[in-house]
């Protein structure tokens, strides 16, 4: 008798429970839409408000401007000067420079360690490598920023005899430390997801372990390794605290890796606290935020899709 009573009552609960769960499930989707909406909303005046466009229209942010009469046109980021200058080019250059140094440093190490872990390491060794990488990933970026500001900068200054402690190289190396775990994890995952049947086939044909890796595993995992590097680059471009603390934050246009740089993310972090709500400067900072969001969104979407396709392909082959 009890069961009969219990069933119709639970139907309503069942319905409500299911609705509640499915509504919650959309939180991530809603979250990402809200992020885009609310950041882009603040950046819209760049496209519509003539007052903002006076100082920071799209072409003023991209092309060289003649800020003072009679002087050569130039790119400059000086938002609080008497003649405010909002060129994004110096910031773009700084961001790319720091990210490239980070990748030059992190990609060989991350991919190398991933190859060792997946192809050569004994089980015991792997149980050391993986937690080490997890620990590296767990270090808060403000701690890496602190380390490169206080320790690494001094070391680099002494080794290379630099005038200024804080520069792109210093920030790039610390940024690399933050990126290594991403590259390692994605690349290692790509290599271990190569099915054993492929390895076995190569061994059966007489290949030694290294030849198995080189002729069999790498070609199959290469897109995955590339995806890891691309995702790492996305992280390097978006990372804030490390560059904010270690790069010197001077918007210099130069190709020298030992010059100071100012990145997009660090510019937002350093300037947002002091801007007037709704001013041109405020709008431009949100515009930079929109650029960062769109850039990392595209990188992540592309990387994620590539990884899924590779996995499907590899797993499809074994079945």
């Amino acid at each position, binding site marked *: 008798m009890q069961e009969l009573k219990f069933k119709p009552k639970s139907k309503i609960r*069942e319905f409500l429970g299911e609705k509640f769960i499915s509504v919650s499930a959309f939180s991530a989707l809603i979250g990402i839409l809200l992020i885009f909406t609310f950041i882009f909303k603040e950046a819209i005046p760049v496209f519509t408000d003539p007052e903002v466009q006076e100082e920071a229209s799209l072409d003023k942010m991209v092309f060289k401007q003649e800020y003072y009469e009679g002087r050569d046109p130039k790119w400059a980021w000086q938002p609080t000067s008497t003649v405010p200058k909002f060129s994004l080019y110096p910031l773009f250059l700084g961001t790319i420079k720091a990210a490239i140094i980070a990748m030059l440093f992190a990609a060989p190490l991350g991919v190398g360690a991933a190859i060792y872990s997946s192809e050569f390491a004994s089980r015991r060794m792997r149980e050391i490598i993986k937690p080490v990488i997890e620990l590296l990933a767990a270090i808060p970026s403000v701690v890496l920023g602190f*380390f490169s500001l206080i320790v690494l900068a001094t070391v680099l200054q002494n080794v290379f005899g630099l005038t200024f402690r804080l520069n792109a190289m210093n920030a790039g190396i610390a940024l690399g430390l933050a990126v290594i775990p991403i590259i390692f994890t994605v690349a290692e995952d790509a290599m271990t997801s190569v099915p054993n049947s492929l390895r076995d086939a190569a061994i059966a044909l007489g290949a030694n372990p290294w030849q198995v890796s080189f002729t069999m595993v790498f070609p199959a995992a290469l897109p995955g390794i590339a995806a890891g590097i691309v995702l790492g680059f996305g992280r390097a471009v*978006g990372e804030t605290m490390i560059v*904010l603390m270690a790069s010197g934050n001077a918007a210099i246009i130069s190709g020298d890796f030992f010059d100071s740089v100012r990145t997009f993310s660090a510019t937002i*972090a350093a300037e947002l606290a002091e801007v007037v709500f709704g001013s041109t400067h405020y709008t431009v900072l949100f515009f930079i935020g929109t650029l960062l969001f769109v850039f990392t969104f595209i990188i992540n979407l592309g990387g994620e899709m590539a990884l899924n396709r590779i996995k499907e392909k590899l797993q499809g082959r074994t079945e």
Partner: protein
Amino acid sequence: MKVHDRTITYSEGMTAGPLDFRPKSSGRIPRGLTFAAVLVIISMLAVILGNIVYGGIGTISWDFLTHPPENGMEEGGVFPAIFGTVALVLLMVIAVVPIGVLTAIYLHEYTSPKSKITRMIRVAIANLAGVPSIVFGLFGLGFFIAFIGGGLDWLFYRDEGPVWGQPAIIWAALTLALLTLPVVIVSTEEALRTIPRELKEASYALGGTKLQTIVRIIIPQSLPGILTGSILAVSRGAGEVAPIMFTGAAYYLPYLPNKLNDQFMELGYHIYVMATQSPNIEATKPILYGTVLVLLVLTFLLNFIAIYIRSSMRKKRAA
């Protein structure tokens, strides 16, 4: 068959000559190179941790952990920052865990992995994990403080100054909750995958409804995974600075936060300001190192616990 075609592609690559498999390259050089990459990563981690422990251990004392800063951060302790960090992540966990767990349950129990909605939610989760942390900061300012907080003020406190429309611990916690949502979802899903199908079938066979099965079987069974996810989220949230620097963190407050709309001190932000804006870096250095050590020990401890729970969960699954 397509499956066979692909396998043949690979063997064709190899039949460039079976002689290629003469053991001319034993793989000793690649093995050595990739092992060197591992060594470099391990030693860099060791140098960073060693430096911080060496620099900070002398500062740590009971007084340091339980007293507020004094004399312009050159003396005293970090108690308010520890308190603020703990309060912040607690609020964050309350917000993020239920939503993350329900999302994971929805994805794993209610929809087919091939459905469009599932895939869209998955894309959103992967992308949310890749949004730069400074963009979360912008979002927190634009959405939580200006839109939600400003809206509440407009509705209820029109005659007073800003009550909710200002940086506050609740807005910082909610911003971090969105940032850590993917961590909780991914860990919970991993746990859901380990639940044996027989358990669910047994529940259904006994007349349990889907919701009852979820509440009484699935959630209790996946508790270790939910716990792992929450701990990892806390560790991640405790280390993030960029999202909270505009949404509620303050450098120095003479009182502890006791309302949801109070500002708060936080370890990571404390490190950032001390490291970059101290007038006398040599005098604050011991305190700075001590604070970094506290934050690092906190994050690592949380990570070790999470790794331990996860590995025992995996062992259980393998057994």
